[in-house]
């Protein structure tokens, strides 16, 4: 089956029904489409697919006519969908106003003139889809569609013709490293577990994705669950495990639903269970839903959780490869790692190693979010620069603002400022600049983002999610957070940066698990690159981004105030005097009464209220006012 599915002999209407699509209104759209084709008696097939990655264009709707290329429409709302179907399905004329692109005519499908090709769009041009090969293209609930796109070919190849050691060798040679973030070589990990002594071994898929703003694993599980199952079958065979668990967070209901359907489908097809494909190899998979603790993404806490214990990490060594689930040798990999495996087996280690750089092979999926024009789920070859991701794929900063930094690795990661945006995406280079590869969260910040506030946000998350077992993480992160909160509230005393560095270093060095060991990373890396900004907050009590409300004062420009009285009426605490035609005086904001809610600033129809304190302010409104009043 190809992208364009030319085998189809009736029109296909394809809807992106991943969580992202549903959140953008795909369900209402689906109802409308169903209603419309029923009403007009159109003989068309409606297909649900997972996320294709273009979050900025959701909801997405694709149409494939027999022997024609697949055409993608973006931001399709219920009121325009009938127009699109009328024109495209009923008359085979793509509705030009809302069309985004069409797929390359790779299988002899007849393209439409004047519509750009999907693969050549700026968002896709630099992407390389290996893990996301099927996401958005197949119906995730149909094992047949997965099989039609070479699905389970690798499992067949492995079980019928390869020894476990050979499988491990291929994975080792491919250079695949753990996509959960730490980047441990996958083949070596498998080898440790294969060689570990034990009558029983377990395999676990870590699908407890929890970084704020990260949704790579969710999209894979929702859009292509069988690729993960296939990767697990291969890994189970390689390490000698007969039982596998997928630890998936319960907050991913659609991913859970798809897995709950995919596992029995695989069983019915003889791909899971006893005597798989008649080879004598037994392997089955059980789902375990996580109850919403971030720390359960840490492998030892995850194991404790599966065992029914409180999700708290255990000390390593012993490592899970020797003593894991129920004390038996256990191999844990992340969703994305498993999803890479079938492709590596199918196309060879050398093919895979061809992508990326010497130490970081293959591709990486990122959830590109933040103040950027094109947000979405992207898969890029390792070694691509952050600049290419932000500007070429992401289309630069939204609202015409300037790029400030990009944050990778979420609450465990660090930020990379504009000076070094040429940094390539590789495990080692990202670590060297104080960030990490992480599981794939990538948040882009513009110059209205305050780096103290960003650090506070991430620390607030880690403090909340600390399990409470070890002192440096339990109390240390809380104290780091409180220091940042004091800085933001304008209550800094002066020595805060020294304390942040000292305490942050102890928390990193002394914490029990990865959560605590990396929790100070955001604040430490932001202080490293944005020292001036921290100093301004602490010494001058000002926030250049204008994001810390306690550090900014609202002021009315007396010369330009039109005395309309709107701000006076809007102020909830009566902090504004005069400012009316009656008073004949311009409005005046009493700072001692002001609660910095910003209502006056928002309501002023003449833009004469500005914030002071933001020394090098970048607030859009103030920029328009110029430097005169500051």
């Amino acid at each position, binding site marked *: 089956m190809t992208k364009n599915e030319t085998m189809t002999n009736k029109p296909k209407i394809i809807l992106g029904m991943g969580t992202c699509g549903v959140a953008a209104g795909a369900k209402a759209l689906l109802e409308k489409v169903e209603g419309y084709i029923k009403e007009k008696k159109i003989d068309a097939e409606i297909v649900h697919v997972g996320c294709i990655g273009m979050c900025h264009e959701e909801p997405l709707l694709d149409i494939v006519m027999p022997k024609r290329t697949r055409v993608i429409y973006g931001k399709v709302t219920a009121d325009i969908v009938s127009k699109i179907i009328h024109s495209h399905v009923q008359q085979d004329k793509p509705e030009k106003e809302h069309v985004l692109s069409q797929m390359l005519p790779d299988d002899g499908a007849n393209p439409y003139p004047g519509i750009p090709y999907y693969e050549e769009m700026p968002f896709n041009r630099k992407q390389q889809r290996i893990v996301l090969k099927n996401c958005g293209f197949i119906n995730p609930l149909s094992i047949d569609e997965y099989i039609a796109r070479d699905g389970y070919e690798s499992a067949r190849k492995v079980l019928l013709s390869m020894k476990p050691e050979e499988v491990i060798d291929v994975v080792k040679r491919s250079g695949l490293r753990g996509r959960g973030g730490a980047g441990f070589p996958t083949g070596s990990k498998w080898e440790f577990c294969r060689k570990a002594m034990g009558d029983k071994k377990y395999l676990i898929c870590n699908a407890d994705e929890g970084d704020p703003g990260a949704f790579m694993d969710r999209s894979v599980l929702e859009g292509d669950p069988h690729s993960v199952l296939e990767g697990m079958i291969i890994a189970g065979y390689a390490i000698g495990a007969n039982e596998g668990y997928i630890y998936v967070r319960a907050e991913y209901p659609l991913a859970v639903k798809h897995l709950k359907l995919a596992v029995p489908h695989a069983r019915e097809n003889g791909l899971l269970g006893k005597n798989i494909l008649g080879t004598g190899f037994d392997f089955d998979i059980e789902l375990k839903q996580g109850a919403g603790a971030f720390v359960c993404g840490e492998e030892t806490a995850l194991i404790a959780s599966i065992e029914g214990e409180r999700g708290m990490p255990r000390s390593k060594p012993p490592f899970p490869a020797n003593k894991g689930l129920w004390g038996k040798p256990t191999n844990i990999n992340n969703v994305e790692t498993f999803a890479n495996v079938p492709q590596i087996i199918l196309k060879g280690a050398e093919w895979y190693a061809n992508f990326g750089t010497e130490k970081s092979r293959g591709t990486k999926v990122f959830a590109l979010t933040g103040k950027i024009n094109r947000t979405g789920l992207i898969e890029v070859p390792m070694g691509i620069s952050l600049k290419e991701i932000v500007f070429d794929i992401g289309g630069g900063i939204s609202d015409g603002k300037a790029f400030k930094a990009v944050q990778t690795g979420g609450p465990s990661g660090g930020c990379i400022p504009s000076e070094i945006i040429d940094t390539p995406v590789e495990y080692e280079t990202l670590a060297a600049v104080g960030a990490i590869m992480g599981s794939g969260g990538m948040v882009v910040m513009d110059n209205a983002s305050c780096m103290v506030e960003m650090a506070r946000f991430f620390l607030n998350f880690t403090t909340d999610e600390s399990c409470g077992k070890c002192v440096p993480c339990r109390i240390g992160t*809380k104290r780091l957070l409180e220091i940042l909160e004091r800085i933001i509230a304008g209550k800094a005393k002066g020595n805060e940066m020294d304390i942040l560095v000292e305490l942050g270093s102890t928390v990193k060095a*002394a914490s029990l698990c990865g959560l605590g060991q990396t929790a100070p990373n955001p604040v430490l890396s932001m202080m490293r690159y944005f020292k001036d900004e921290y100093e301004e907050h602490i010494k001058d009590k000002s926030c250049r981004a204008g994001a810390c409300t306690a550090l900014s004062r609202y002021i009315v420009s007396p010369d330009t105030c039109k005395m309309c009285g709107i701000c006076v009426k809007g102020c909830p605490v009566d902090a504004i005097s005069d400012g009316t035609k009656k008073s004949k005086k311009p409005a005046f904001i009493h700072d001692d009464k002001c609660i910095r809610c910003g209502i006056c600033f928002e309501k002023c129809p003449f833009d004469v209220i500005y914030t002071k304190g933001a020394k090098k302010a970048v607030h859009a409104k103030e920029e328009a006012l110029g430097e005169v009043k500051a």
Partner: protein
Amino acid sequence: MKVTIDNKEIIANNGETILEAAKRAGINIPTLCHHPKLSNYGGCRVCMVEIKGMNRFVASCTTPVADNIVVETNTTNIRQSRKTVLELILSDHPNDCMTCDKTGDCTLQDLAYEYGVKENPYIGAMRQYPTEDKNPYIIRDFSKCILCAKCTRVCNEIRGVGAIDIMKRGFYAKVAMPFDEVLDCEFCGNCVDVCPVGSLTEKIAKGKGRTWETRKVDTICAYCGVGCGITLHIKDNTVIKVTPTEKESVNNGSLCVKGKFAYDFINSADRLKKPLIKKDGKFVEATWDEAIDYTVKRLKEIKEKHGSDSIGGLSSARCTNEDNYLFQKFMRAGIGTNNVDHCARY
């Protein structure tokens, strides 16, 4: 295998932790959450040490020795980090040692002294959990809890009761019964015995005396035939607290609710100290000789008049095996009846 700890070459056993190997070599590493009878936890991080070549400190209580590792336990860096950890613990701990019953017997206090922790550089929120003393035996002051989890481990691993575990997360984690109910368990009090700070204390010992004021006397619990080793803490000739003895004993550091808490009879005014014989409807104090003579006389009279089987004997589980053996022998051979029983059945 050979390991080097603080420049000392040590032959360590396979599977042994760094802490254990160091201890055997006479090197003291401080701990708060470690207990030799409980599983290794690694939560307090006070026992952290440096292994040459590793960029992080490791908890010596959980890290097994490896061949040829070089360990430092007391460098400036380590001491500074330990001090920071202690400062963090004390930043969320009431500074009330002057009125705390644990003073003088508190590991946290000892370590704060050793590491010179004076002021608190990390001012911030403190847990505000109310003290729970609605149960009959134990005062649970959660504001003093350092979450070392010794109590939960002793309850789960040694007693097998599982009454308590940790609830909530992070800074607000708390040791609790299911649904945070008032403590209602076997009240063996082993959690109190292992608590390194003043979070768990004996209700009846409150305010009765400080550890340095008491004389410690090792003895055997008289409640039953098991013969648990106990230590009586005595102030002014009054037992104010009982703890399991630290010496080798049959109970291996455990006690039950009776041995641990039920000692107030010792100085009770109602306590029977001399035998009583009922005369003219009233109990009158007598000597032991009088009492035994009287008993022998009455038993003989009854046996002669009504026969051996008109007499029955009931013994007690609080007696030793030997006592109980002799009692049944006495009933069978002396009295001549099989009418003999015991509160836990013979």
